[in-house]
């Protein structure tokens, strides 16, 4: 188990928003929406032991049964968001499954089928497994679109809404799928990371009197009909400012817009980031950390990015690799957890934040 001991679950009236970051091996939000109902947003794994996805492992640490998972959301199918998702769905028979698809469902499913039939271990394989599980169960998926409520009924304390993707984005997605098929139809090609961040599902959580935004990987783009500009222009669902945000796209420049902080968030909101690193590229940059620190003194990160070294192996092989490929770096696995809880029956309550394992509060 992740925490190595029996940890205390939240009370029935307490909301919990726990962000887990496992570097390149993914990120996930585990959210308690009251009355022992749990929601999982995306998934991540430990590459050295990927039998149990980390969100499930975390719930086990709390003594929570997967039967209490009522909703699983796949914000988009990049590998750093989807690894292990089918195992979570498999273990959670009561869960609904929410995705963002293109308007043209047949084209979308054909694209998924094409990519998942490749030899490479693509993230659409994980997605296809999820669709198979739903089919076996006789269930349908929930199609995410802005302003759609995807969880919560009547007097329940926790309600979850989608803030993106927009209708426009879903129409564009139809065209992009055609382009992706053209560019990456070959069975030996893996679809690179550049698409579909704009299709990310951004969530708005109403947790009693408190509000939270889970930003996925949504970016600010020039077109005001999609991305963060659209979220801020639309605002139909947003009834109050949020006191917590999962910062989008690893704190990148494009994941930021000043008005997210001015319009959507309360002063000094709890802000959480998962970093990202590949070779010499990494997120967030120092300038962005400073920008976020200007908005809040409650800025947390799941891991401090460090330079990567060569992977440990048999000594002869290590020497051999060093002589042939001295620049080969291990993509390190390091888990960090930022847990926040708040009483949903108390409008004056503040988030209680706990940092676990590799996570850090920035500024400390």
């Amino acid at each position: 188990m992740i925490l190595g001991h029996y940890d205390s679950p939240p009370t029935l009236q307490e909301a919990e928003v726990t962000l887990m970051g496992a570097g390149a091996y993914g990120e996930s939000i585990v959210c308690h929406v009251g009355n022992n109902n749990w929601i999982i947003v995306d998934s991540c794994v430990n590459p050295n032991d990927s039998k149990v996805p980390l969100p499930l492992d975390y719930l086990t640490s709390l003594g929570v049964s997967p039967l209490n998972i009522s909703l699983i959301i796949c914000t988009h199918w990049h590998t750093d968001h989807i690894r292990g998702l089918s195992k979570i769905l498999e273990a959670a028979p009561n869960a609904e499954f929410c995705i963002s698809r293109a308007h043209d469902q047949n084209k979308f499913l054909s694209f998924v089928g094409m990519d998942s039939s490749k030899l490479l271990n693509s993230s659409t394989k994980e997605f296809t497994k999820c669709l198979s599980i739903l089919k076996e169960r006789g269930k349908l998926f929930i199609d995410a679109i802005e302003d759609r409520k995807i969880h919560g009924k009547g007097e329940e304390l926790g309600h979850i809404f989608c803030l993106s993707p927009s209708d426009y984005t879903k129409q564009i997605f139809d065209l992009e799928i055609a382009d992706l098929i053209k560019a990456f139809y070959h069975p030996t090609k893996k679809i690179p990371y550049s698409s579909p961040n704009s299709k990310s599902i951004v969530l708005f959580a109403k947790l009693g009197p408190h509000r939270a935004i889970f930003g996925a990987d949504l970016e600010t783009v020039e077109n005001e009909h999609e991305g963060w500009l659209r979220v801020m222009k639309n605002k139909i669902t947003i009834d109050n400012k949020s006191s917590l945000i999962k910062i989008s796209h690893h704190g990148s420049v494009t994941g930021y817009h000043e008005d997210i902080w001015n319009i959507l968030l309360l002063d000094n909101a709890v802000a959480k980031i998962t970093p990202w690193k590949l070779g010499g590229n990494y997120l967030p940059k120092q300038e962005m950390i400073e920008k976020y620190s200007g908005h809040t003194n409650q800025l947390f990160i799941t891991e401090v990015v460090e330079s990567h070294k060569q992977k440990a192996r048999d000594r002869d092989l290590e020497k051999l690799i060093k002589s042939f490929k001295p620049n080969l770096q291990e993509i390190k696995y390091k888990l960090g957890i930022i847990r926040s809880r708040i009483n949903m029956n108390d409008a004056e309550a503040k988030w209680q934040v706990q940092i676990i394992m590799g996570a850090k509060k920035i500024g400390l």
Partner: protein
Amino acid sequence: MTDTYFDTFPIETVETVPLNGKKEKAEFILNDAKNLICKDFVTEPFGDIVEEPFRAKKEANDFAKKLFNNFRMPSTYYTKTQKWLGHVVAINEEGFSAVLKDLSGGGTDEYGEFSFKEITEDDLDLISLGAAFYMSLGFISDKGTRKKEEEIRFQRLADYNEDEIINNGLDMTSGFINYFK
């Protein structure tokens, strides 16, 4: 037959094998042949000897015994190798970078930068964003002399045309399309 055993099988199947005695040699050949057969890698590589894939364990054993009876040590084999499956994540004027999945030890992935000079001329046209390749590094034992060797090979599969791929996708997901409509 004896001389062609290692020519017929992919060289990477012959690794980390301390062939010190008759017993070890027998175990190696039996296991290797059984593994190959069980993994369905063998279809018809032995011409007149094997015309169809092996399906039964007994057939696999009998075949491995035949191999053993006629076996001679190859002059060249790998003693230790590390293998990866990579895919290209970025390309620049001098080369490309890739994420590599560790096929030998599993666990964490790796990241590496490659110069076009490291790639054989035949493979240069295959380098593109998302393209997959195999990389292996190893020690070769050649008539008692140990040498280092590196191999980078881009995946080559028969090209499909776009319609075929779309149809494959449709076949693959026709069940979903009918179900989720």
